[in-house]
């Protein structure tokens, strides 16, 4: 029987962690783009579209990410479309991230005082001009800490994609465990790697919050 050294285990886990990082980046970037589009539909002036966007957000926030992954992976398979695990993982995570980011950002836009809308309107600005020059520059500042904070959820969310067979950090953990019979060492390392990815993110969210002084703005 082959003997696995500690280094063997760590090396294999770190190689798989690359996929966790890549999947997180794709989900976060894609989710950010889709989320921004959703945000504009959500706060726009067309009532029907607003409701549609709200429905989307509630659907994705109100169902487990795991179900969404299953539906993306197996659901499309029922219609004869063969979806590879990496694609299903990306699509489900992007759509899930988008729903949460849109809702976080909506809160940020709505936190901008009504007086800012009124002052810019009274100066003759139209809706898009108000958004572009007055509301978004302020909302973005408010949005940075919670957005960075949410990225931690995205990183941890990628662990679920192991269920549909995408080999990232968690899946690699169970594969390595099956080969080495050292679950405590392996999952301990897996947890440490996740922590090493997530901790800098939550820490920077805290620092940004203090630096941008969001809580203490007095208007």
């Amino acid at each position, binding site marked *: 029987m082959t003997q696995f050294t500690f280094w063997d285990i760590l090396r294999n886990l770190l190689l798989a962690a690359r996929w966790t990082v890549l999947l997180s980046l794709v989900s976060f970037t894609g989710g950010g783009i889709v989320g921004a589009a959703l945000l504009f539909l959500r706060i726009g002036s067309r009532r029907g579209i607003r409701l549609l966007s709200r429905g989307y957000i509630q659907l994705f926030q109100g169902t487990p990410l795991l179900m969404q992954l299953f539906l993306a992976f197996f659901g499309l398979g029922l219609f004869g479309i063969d979806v590879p695990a990496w694609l299903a993982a990306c699509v489900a995570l992007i759509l899930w991230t988008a729903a949460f980011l849109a809702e976080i950002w909506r809160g940020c836009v709505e936190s901008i005082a009504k007086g*800012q809308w*009124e002052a810019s309107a*009274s*100066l*003759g600005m139209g809706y898009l001009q108000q958004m572009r020059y007055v509301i978004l520059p302020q909302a973005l500042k408010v949005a940075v800490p919670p957005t960075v904070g949410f990225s931690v959820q995205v990183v941890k969310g990628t662990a679920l994609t192991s269920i549909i067979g995408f080999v990232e950090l968690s899946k690699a953990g169970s594969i390595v465990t099956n080969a080495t019979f050292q679950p405590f060492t392996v999952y301990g390392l897996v947890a440490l790697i996740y922590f090493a990815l997530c901790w800098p993110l939550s820490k920077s969210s805290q620092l940004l919050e203090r630096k941008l002084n969001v809580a203490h703005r007095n208007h």
Partner: protein
Amino acid sequence: MSLIAITEVKKRFGDNEVLKGISIDVASGEVVAIIGKSGSGKSTLLRCINGLETIDEGSIVVAGAQFLSDEAHLKALRLKVGMIFQQFNLFPHLTAGGNVMLSQMVVKKTPKTDAEAVARKMLDRVGLAHKFDALPDELSGGQQQRVAIARALAMQPIALLCDEITSALDPELVAEVLAVVKELAAEGMTLVMVTHEMRFARDVCSRVVFMHQGRVHEIGAPEEVFANPRTPELRQFLGVQ
């Protein structure tokens, strides 16, 4: 011909009728003070003139332009009347100069250098030329309100609406803002102001409107309104028996 013609304006919020048929004509160069208890509809009336609230009945005509609530008409209306708010509402992410420049560049498409020249001139007019690069956070309330006035003036409005512009200020800062307004009045700017500063209304305004429960209760020259209030409501409001 009057510059602002308000005719039989009615406004409801749900079942609550806030304006019950208001008619006021404001001539060019006039300074009109609107006084009254809170809830009398005076702020709502001002917000209607600027299109921040829609009206349910009646008409508001500013310099020949009818009030209609589509975006093109609203913009045309707002280019004619500037508005100053109780809470200043400066854009906190821009400097004082940036606040005065923004709408010129965005709405009027004025080139940056010209907008900056206008901004410096307007800030100088309100006595804040040296604060061009200061952020709103770094200014006192009185200074912020003066920047807000400069910002409205930069759009070259033909009339200014002032919504309790000194109510959020510490007492010692009220005078500097009122001095600016007084100067504007002396230069012939048309002003409609909701105010609690009775002495200012008496000294500077050409007419005083007393609003009560959504109606114009008394209207007249300040000497007349303040010296001989005709109705018990105004007497009570002014605290004279």
